[in-house]
């Protein structure tokens, strides 16, 4: 198809032709085009359907404020719904399709809604669909949901990558129009670190859309030259295709750079977009202004556009929407559009100006004091009906109507910290208020300087003021400095089906109805009618809606209220905020020193926080995980097993006050712990609940090594720093984490000593006498490698933990396996670890759930009352020491073949099963291959006094009821003889 709406000139590369498809029809375009300009060039006016009434819609604007011209871009996994045709930079092979229509754009079945529009008035759904009650989910809502929504997502995962980055600058300039370019030149020449960002792929802003000149040059040439100068400055970073989306606290701005959206395909490893956090000393908002419509009957037909958009398409893209064009305006800027189009050979049917004293132009007809009262053309504008001052009407035959209602400064970012814009009577528009984000100032049209000269000057002044630059302003090129000449005019009296918010189908009638129903605040208006809630965020509709409500209320606009804007300035792909932190990279993965060895052994791994830990080590022939775990438990208890426990937090605590410090952070006493000994430590939160537990080994008078649970390592370290720095700042204590330094392995089982004796260097005696239970020492292994040995046991067996520098962890594990062959040594994972700790009745994560006290866990006596320790006072509160508080007990099914379900609740053997009779709950469970029975730990009311009692463990969720016996939590070796052996 030929581009028969192309005009001469423009900033497109006519030497190159690009092919693209829209709704499966092929077209051609040129570099420099947007999808919107290319469609218009090819005489395509109908692009989409509206949200509610499915009215045929075309383009309204030429920028990111576009409400109507939204399409699904690309295909397959890369499909992007709701993409503005006006911001899509043309590339070869581009594919787009219209959305929210069925079966086709021209014949949309739901267009029928338009006929019933009278019944679908604002908020109608709040008043109906209530009977019968059951019908909402079943009937009404599914229909509404199917009809609602706009484009559709691909069902596939997004194949593209996104990056995040961080940049710093003295001055961030947002917008590269006349004010932004002038500000950048001023600040850049002064040597400041400047970032100049603009959402467009071509810097220049409105200058690219105008024909007037700056100094000797025409506007766009001046912009090109300014960019050329800026690009030679090392202290200036130019960021085209970059939208500054939000102004956050303390001068941090979010910006999204579209590095790949204009490319047919992304080069390998390159991101589609980059989310930048820009740290600024100062920022200057040069975001320009957005032209606003005048609202009239049937003002939403394809071909009815903003006048400035027609001008942009003609001057920048060399395109006219139609050969015959009319203009409807309340200000002189509308006439500029008419003049430019006329100069390009477009036929101007007439300029309809609401002002009686409209400027006359002898090249085409001007209808002063006239209004547009209706339009015709189902799929595209054909006729415009005009009411003349004398009461007569005229029908104009035209394919496009340019509407100009004046300009609204783009104040959005000034509102991002809840600042409110203020009404400017002269402009009849909101301008930035006084409460801007700290460090942000505003220049150019965004600040109400509507002339090009005003923009250039305020841009230069803005840079000078922001950076406190000495010296005079740079010379400014001569530029138009036309005063504002407009008569505020929001909508044509008497219109009903006249669209304020075109995408969400909010009409003048809806605004009036919402006021009639008492929704008088702007926020109520928005929420009740959905005005401004569409993907264009109301850029062309909010203020008009407010103005119409003000007229209805008989109040001034500022009396009626303001409307503020929230981030992001334009919608941003969720993926851009996620960056690379997704999939496997969502969180960093922490590997233990024996990971590579365990992988060779075919271990099954499990996430433990960010760690990956071996869960069990299946042998060939083992088909069920229980086989492996049972074997690991049996072999460990029968001979010896090895488990990587490096993930436990390790904190080096040194200093002359180290012992006293531990006395404060642990509930039990540490001051008198002998050097060379280890002690179990119970740590409480200040509210008396158990925070964590672990061991503290005293390597020297002034040196301890403390362990934490894997889950709480970070929190406990933070807590200890808090106690050290904030509570006892004069204690001589130094802390540092050593979790990663040491590969630490538990060697457990009756033969653990024999195995270790084979690798511990002979000068170290680890016999029971020389190295008894809870001993600890620095030693060497394998001929001189420094190591640490602790005789502690989580399994309840004779056990040690041995630590060597992490880089040797892999080798040590292999050595232990080799030396252990004669004992039939077994590596065991977290499952077997869990089984053995339950058999031994050790509380762990499931019991340390943040709501349990030492008393609950059977360690009440450990909380020393002879000293000051965190949490001891509040652990005494009445409800925490009542006789029937939960106590940790063991539970055993009465018939061993039955299974304990963690999370099941305990009920008395007789009586109702309900919340009122809840006695407690099972925290952990496992199958004990030693007892050949399922066993569990539970927290039971007054549990300590209910040993031997039969109860029901109920889990209606999993449809289980098991009769259990309450027993001691210490299933294995209650006297602890084994671990002292």
């Amino acid at each position: 198809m030929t581009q028969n709406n192309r005009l001469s000139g423009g900033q497109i590369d006519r030497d190159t032709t690009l092919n693209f498809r829209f709704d499966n029809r092929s077209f051609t375009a040129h570099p420099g085009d947007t999808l919107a300009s290319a469609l218009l060039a090819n005489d395509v006016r109908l692009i989409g359907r509206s949200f509610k009434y499915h009215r045929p819609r075309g383009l309204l604007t030429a920028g990111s404020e576009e409400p109507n011209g939204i399409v699904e871009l690309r295909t397959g996994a890369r499909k992007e719904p709701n993409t503005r045709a006006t911001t899509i930079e043309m590339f070869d092979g581009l594919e787009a399709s219209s959305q929210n229509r069925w079966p086709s754009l021209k014949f949309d079945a739901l267009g029928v809604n338009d006929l019933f529009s009278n019944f679908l008035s604002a908020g109608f759904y709040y008043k109906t669909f209530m009977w019968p009650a059951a019908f909402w989910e079943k009937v009404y809502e599914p229909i509404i949901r199917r009809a609602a929504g706009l484009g559709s997502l691909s069902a596939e995962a997004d194949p593209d990558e996104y990056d995040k980055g961080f940049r710093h600058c003295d001055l961030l300039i947002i917008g590269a129009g006349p004010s932004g370019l002038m500000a950048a030149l001023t600040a850049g020449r002064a040597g400041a670190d400047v970032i100049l960002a603009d959402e467009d792929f071509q810097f220049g802003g409105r200058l690219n859309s105008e024909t007037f000149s700056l100094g000797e040059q025409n506007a766009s040439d001046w912009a090109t030259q300014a960019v050329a100068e800026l690009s030679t400055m090392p202290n200036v970073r130019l960021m085209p295709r970059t939208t500054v989306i939000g102004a956050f606290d303390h001068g941090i701005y979010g910006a999204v750079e579209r590095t790949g959206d204009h490319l047919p395909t992304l080069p390998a490893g390159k991101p589609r977009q980059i989310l930048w956090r820009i740290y600024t000393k100062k920022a200057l908002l040069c975001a320009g202004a957005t032209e606003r419509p005048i609202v009239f009957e049937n003002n939403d037909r394809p071909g009815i556009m903003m006048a400035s958009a027609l001008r942009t398409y003609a001057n920048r893209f060399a395109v006219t929407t139609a050969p015959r064009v009319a203009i409807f305006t309340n200000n002189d800027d509308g006439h500029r559009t008419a003049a430019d189009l006329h100069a390009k050979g477009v036929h101007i049917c007439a300029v309809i100006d609401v002002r009686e004293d409209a400027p006359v132009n002898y090249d085409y007809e001007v209808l002063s004091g006239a209004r547009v009262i209706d339009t015709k053309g189902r799929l595209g504008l054909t006729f415009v009906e005009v009411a003349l001052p004398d009461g007569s009407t005229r029908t104009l035959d035209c394919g496009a109507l340019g509407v100009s209602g004046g300009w609204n400064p783009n104040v959005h970012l000034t509102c991002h910290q809840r600042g409110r814009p203020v009404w400017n009577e002269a402009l009849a528009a909101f301008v930035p208020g006084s409460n801007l984000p700290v460090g942000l100032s505003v220049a150019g049209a965004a600040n109400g300087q509507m002339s090009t000269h005003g923009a250039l000057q305020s841009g230069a002044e803005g840079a000078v003021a922001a950076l406190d630059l000495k010296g005079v302003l740079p010379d400014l090129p001569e530029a138009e400095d036309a005063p504002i000449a407009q008569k505020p005019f929001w909508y044509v009296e008497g219109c009903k089906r006249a669209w304020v918010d075109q995408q969400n189908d909010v009409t003048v009638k809806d605004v009036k109805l919402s006021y009639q129903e008492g929704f008088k605040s702007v926020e109520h208006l928005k929420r009740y009618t959905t005005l401004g809630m569409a993907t264009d965020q109301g850029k062309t509709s909010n203020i008009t809606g407010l103005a119409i409500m003000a007229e209805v209320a008989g109040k001034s606009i500022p009396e009626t209220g303001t409307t503020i804007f929230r981030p992001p300035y334009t919608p941003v792909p969720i993926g851009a905020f996620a960056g690379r932190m997704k999939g496997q990279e969502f969180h960093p993965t922490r590997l233990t020193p024996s990971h590579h060895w365990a992988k060779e052994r075919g271990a099954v791994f499990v996430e433990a926080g960010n760690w990956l830990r071996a869960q069990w080590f299946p042998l060939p022939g083992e088909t069920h995980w229980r086989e492996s775990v049972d074997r690991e438990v049996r072999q460990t208890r029968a001979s010896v097993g090895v488990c990587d426990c490096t993930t436990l937090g390790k904190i080096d605590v040194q200093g002359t006050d180290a012992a006293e410090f531990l006395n404060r952070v642990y509930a039990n006493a540490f001051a008198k712990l002998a050097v060379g000994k280890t002690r179990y430590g119970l740590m409480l939160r200040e509210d008396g609940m158990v925070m964590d537990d672990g061991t503290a080994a005293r390597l020297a008078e002034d040196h301890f090594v403390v362990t934490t649970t894997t889950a709480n390592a970070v929190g406990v370290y933070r807590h200890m720093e808090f106690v050290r720095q904030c509570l006892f700042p004069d204690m001589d204590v130094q802390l540092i984490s050593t979790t990663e330094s040491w590969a630490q392995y538990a060697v457990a089982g009756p033969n653990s000593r024999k195995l270790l004796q084979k690798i511990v260097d002979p000068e170290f005696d680890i016999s029971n006498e020389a190295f008894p239970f809870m001993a600890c020492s620095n030693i060497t292994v394998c001929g001189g490698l420094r190591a640490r040995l602790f005789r502690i046991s989580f399994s309840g067996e004779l056990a040690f933990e041995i630590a060597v520098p992490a880089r040797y962890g892999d080798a040590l594990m292999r050595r232990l396996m080799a030396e252990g062959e004669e004992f039939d040594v077994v590596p065991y994972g977290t499952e077997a670890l869990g089984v053995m700790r339950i058999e031994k009745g050790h509380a762990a994560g499931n019991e340390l759930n943040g709501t349990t006290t030492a008393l609950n866990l059977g360690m009440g006596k450990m909380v020393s009352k002879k000293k000051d320790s965190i949490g001891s006072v509040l652990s005494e509160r009445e409800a925490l020491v009542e006789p029937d508080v939960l106590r940790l007990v063991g539970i055993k099914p009465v018939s061993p073949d039955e299974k304990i379900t963690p999370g099941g609740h305990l009920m008395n053997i007789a009586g109702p099963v309900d919340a009122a009779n809840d006695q407690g709950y099972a925290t952990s469970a496992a199958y004990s291959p030693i007892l050949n029975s399922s066993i569990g730990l539970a927290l039971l009311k007054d549990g300590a006094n209910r040993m031997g009692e039969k109860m029901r463990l109920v889990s209606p969720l999993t449809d289980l009821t098991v009769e259990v016996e309450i027993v001691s939590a210490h299933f294995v070796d209650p006297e602890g003889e084994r671990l002292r052996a």
Partner: protein
Amino acid sequence: MRYSGFRVIKEALTGHKGWKPVWRDPEPKAQYDIIVIGGGGHGLATAHYLSKVYGQRNVAVVEKGWIGGGNVGRNTTIVRSNYMLDGNEPFYEFSMKLWEGLEQDLNYNAMMSQRGILNLFHSDAQRDAYTRRGNAMILHGADAELLDADQVRKEHPYLNFDDARFPIMGGLVQRRAGTARHDAVAWGFARSADSHGVDIIQNCEVTGLRIENGKCLGVETSKGFIGANKVGCAVAGNSGRVMGMAGMRLPIESHVLQAFVSEGLKPVLPSVITYGAGHFYISQSDKGGLVFGGDIDGYNTYAQRGNLPVVEDVCEGGVSLMPVISRARLLRMWGGVMDMSMDGSPIIDHTPVEGLYFNGGWCYGGFKATPASGHCFAHLLAKDEPHPVATAYRLDRFKTGRMIDERGAGNQPNLH
């Protein structure tokens, strides 16, 4: 005026001339039996139940701005009763039952949509905790189901089952949970309360509480003093400010919770989903927007806005769980100020000041509680005794050690 489909048709045919304001805009009287401070969801619900259930007609709601402008108008609209502890579950299940009959009770379509909520788990410990929770729900008469990974995949094939850093092991489902149209909830309660004679007074900021000899006599406002026999404070987010006027310090901090909505999309998400390995929960509104959120920013604030790190954190969780939403665009973000309490649970209680009652500490769970909170607060105000399902929400529970701590995070509000 009763709303119905027939009414809508009739009005449509007669040019919608008959629609009346949804609530009057009265000037305050000199004296009321009961004044509720706060024209948000909870305050308006309180007024509705006071007038409709407890027969209190001489009631005013005073609101500093426009009604529904607080958290009821800035949340992620989720309704559920999937709590674990005795102090909570009966209350939230009571609330769920009120939601189920709300449209008919209010004659206003708040679009309560019972599309279900799925809480995913990714570890054995999480599964055990959810099992305990699900059992507690059932024992309290609510509904709960436990799904394994395959069942989750059947219902939600678009979740990340292929390269998840924290694989989905299953989930706890409450089918009766869902979402409601948040603004409509506020408007519906307001309309009903108004129709039962309650004065809803907008743009009337409380500037002080008149307290003499330990008794609260009324409120000083931007529209002058308004007397009352009883004053109930329901201003979650600003509880510290208002109760501060009575010289009270609370077990509460104010924090901001951000929420997000995407551009409108054709239906992709059948229910509400929460991620167990990251800060992310999501649903899809009837208009097609993906409504999602995550963790609070974490620092004390009264500003209704947040910062980028949490936005990124939420989206990282979202894309990790649902790679299909990566190309969907985030359209709007906003912040609501939350009463974060010291155990993550609310307070509905009388205060040491006679005639002054307090409702707050809702953390970020206030929306789902709206009907029950209103009902129970109305009960307390009308009868001077706690409603049976709200007896645990006492102000003194931290002193006695009767915390209701679902998360086990203890006395650090920003962890709840």
